[in-house]
């Protein structure tokens, strides 16, 4: 299988001029299509930083990231926005959704940015929200949804743009165990049925147990990489 993500000697130093922090240093990571990979490690080990670099939300201070063979670290900020829109789905720990839009409008929004037709947008939003079990919450605003439901809308939104892979930074950190399990089930199902690639960071052992590959970071370096 081909690598959709490939990082080479990837490094990020924060505050290089004052008190340098080597958040990520010399990371070589290859991710294949269809993976369900957990990024783990103690707090401050560089998980968020690494995900930001892979997702093109930040620029590295050294090395590079190739997505589908294209080096994204060379891209301008504006080009990166467009690249993210077309290639990467994001699920953040919180504040994923536009508060003034309903669940289905939030899902439609990315498709709007991609200039998908109105009919197709509406159809797909209903489909995706049904897939994540929120068929009856289409017209609810984020504030009317539970934390778990909001995260499921975020997953549906991430899928809406038909990305190559989805990055999720501690998607379950704010959820109770039942919601966590529910979200993980949905992600696993999408991974198996739709071959959607997921890379997520987590502290939660039950989430780690569900992953099929676990990459462990310590002090910005990969210390173990196991398939299970």
């Amino acid at each position, binding site marked *: 299988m081909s690598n959709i993500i490939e990082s080479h000697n990837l490094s990020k130093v924060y505050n290089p001029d004052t008190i340098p922090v080597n958040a990520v240093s010399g990371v070589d990571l290859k991710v294949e299509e269809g993976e369900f990979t957990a990024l783990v490690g103690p707090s401050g080990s560089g998980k968020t930083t690494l995900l930001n670099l892979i997702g093109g939300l930040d620029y590295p201070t050294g090395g590079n990231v190739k997505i589908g063979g294209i080096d994204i670290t060379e891209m301008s900020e504006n080009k990166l926005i467009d690249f993210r829109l077309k290639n990467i789905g994001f699920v*953040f720990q919180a504040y994923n959704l536009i508060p003034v*839009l309903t669940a289905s409008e939030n899902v439609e929004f990315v498709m709007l940015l991609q200039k998908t037709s109105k009919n197709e947008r509406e159809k797909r939003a209903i489909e995706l929200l049904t897939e994540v079990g929120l068929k009856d919450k289409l017209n609810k605003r984020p504030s009317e949804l539970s934390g778990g439901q909001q995260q499921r809308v975020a997953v549906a939104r991430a899928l809406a743009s038909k990305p190559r892979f989805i990055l999720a930074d501690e998607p379950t950190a704010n959820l109770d165990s039942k919601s966590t399990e529910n979200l993980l089930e949905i992600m696993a199902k999408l991974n198996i049925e739709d071959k959607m690639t997921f890379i997520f960071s987590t502290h939660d052992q039950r989430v780690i147990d569900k992953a099929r590959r676990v990459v462990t970071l310590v002090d910005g370096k990969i210390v173990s990489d196991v398939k299970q």
Partner: protein
Amino acid sequence: MLFKIAWRNIWRNRTRSIVVIASVAVGLFAGMFMMAFFQGAVNQEIDSMVETQLSHIQFHNPAFIDDKDVNDTIANGRAIINKLKNDKDVKAVSGRLVTTGMISSSSTASGVEIHGVVPSDEKAVSSISKDVIVGVYFTGLKKNEIVIGEKLAGKLGVKLHNKIVLTFQSKTGDLTAGSFRIAGIFRSRNSAFDESTVFTSFDDLAGLLVTGDGVHEIAVVLKDGQKTDAIAKVLKTEYQSLLVQTWTELSPQMALLTGIMDQMMYIIIGIILLALMFGIINTMLMAVLERQREFGMLMAIGMNKPRVFFMILLESVMLTCAGIPAGILLTIITVGSLARHGIDLSAFSQALSQYGFSNFIFPVLKQSMFLPVSLMTAFTAVLSAIYPAIKALRFKPAEAIHKI
């Protein structure tokens, strides 16, 4: 959907948005009110000048204007007056004799401009006959009647039916004096005019000046004052030997006043809009900084910078556009009612009437003001959203999302 998002975003902070909408409305109202007020004042001033002194068009012997020499009468003035009276655009015509002289009572004397008028004609041309507060505007029964201003009567210490003496130079160059009895005392809006102008009958003055049939000045009031320039142009070619002047030519300072008022209005509106601008900048900046994480998320999932920029501008424009109709409505209601009843400025009337202004100002709301003022306000909204929008574009998604 951007419109939907922008519109709903406005209502996320209801109080703040209502404050902005209200300040746009009040700012717009204040600007329009000022314009209507000054427009009303200027219009009234022009009307009053046209009514009391200038009329729409005046004819003179070109030589008369320089030194008001008694000899410089209009040749065959009577014939011209009769011809003008039959013109379909002309409402009224009055032929006048005009000379400067001295008016004296038993106690004191004062320099005045003496107007010899045919009362029935002059009544139709100027408003002085309506401003008579004591006595009448010529009984027409006796010889040597005079009508003088209240201010002058006070200065001379004379009352109705008192005698005064006018002294001036006749056509032959002799110093002539005539004794007149006060038939009426007037009070116009312009106290300077009241102090310096007196009226006698045409025939009495003609007798003393020995001008015979001669006329110094022909004043014309048109049926439609808006046509003044067009009609004057025709008359100028018809009477090339005479000096034909419109009221703006007769009183260039009036035209200047109108110009100054226009400039002042734009300065005032500029100041109001500037204040509005700081209000909107402040509000939008707060709204943007509050939503830093949201903007970070939007850019992370692929909303490009032009779209983010446009959305923020849209929010500002929507806020303002909600305020504009409110401001226009407020203006129409308030100014509309004041235009009917007038604004009472009698508290300041002493000073105002010295400059010829009325005690009551009737603001004039021009429909044509709405569009430019609304556009200027909308433009201000766009302008003041630019800085907050640029601020939002500087957010780095990676940092913005993780801000707690």
